[in-house]
């Protein structure tokens, strides 16, 4: 069983999926599978597969309208990873500074 963060990393590890996700984020409204297929010159099947992975990671929501499925980006899901990384980025920056000070002032 995959956990949430692992699914997130899996979803964004593929460049095509990152592009699709990016296109959805900057789109002002939900995009249909057909629109995404056209934009990326991919088959509907190919798009559907990527969309499924993104949906499983919680990065987008699918809305069904008539016969077409529309995808809406959910970028907030990336927050968890970002916060973790930001916390430790800063944590290590601070502590390497402290290490430098310590070395400089050590007798």
């Amino acid at each position, binding site marked *: 069983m995959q*956990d*949430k*963060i*692992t699914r*997130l*990393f899996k979803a*964004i590890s593929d460049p095509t999926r990152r592009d699709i996700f990016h296109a959805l984020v900057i789109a002002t409204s939900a995009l249909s599978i057909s629109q995404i297929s056209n934009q990326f010159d991919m088959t509907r099947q190919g798009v559907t597969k990527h969309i499924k992975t993104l949906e499983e990671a919680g990065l987008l929501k699918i809305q069904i309208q008539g016969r077409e499925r529309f995808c809406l980006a959910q970028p907030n899901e*990336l927050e*968890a*990873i970002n*916060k*973790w*990384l*930001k*916390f*430790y*980025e*800063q*944590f*290590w*920056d*601070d*502590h*390497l500074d*402290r*290490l*430098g*000070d*310590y*070395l*400089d002032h*050590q007798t």
Partner: protein
Amino acid sequence: MKDLITKEAHFNHPIEKVWNAISKAEEISTWFIKADFKAESGYHYTFIASQKNDCVNITGVVIEATPYTLIYTWIVAHTEVETTVKWELEATDNGTRLYLEHSGISKYKGDTAIKMFESFNGGWAGCMTELSDYLKKLVNAG
């Protein structure tokens, strides 16, 4: 997106001095976190949080400690998943270059990660010696 934090720093000090600073309990306790630590492969170390608030310790096992590479696992108490911290030193003409790598972040379960962020609000960040105001603001803003 990366699953890895890497840092690089240069110190105008000999490699042996920097190695001691990152591997000897007495020195780690001075600039980093109060530590029960031995640079011996297999040693179960503890970085001891201050007693106030609900601070939690960091624990882990030393995986490698051969000059000048130090690797240990990093487990925040009450969480299940471990990450790995690797320190590497390299002598340069006028000092020592330090490479730090913190990896395995994606192994954190979603709920665990969220719980961790919440615990920062509860003072965990403050436990880790004196973190900058910037960091506290960042964490509280979450």
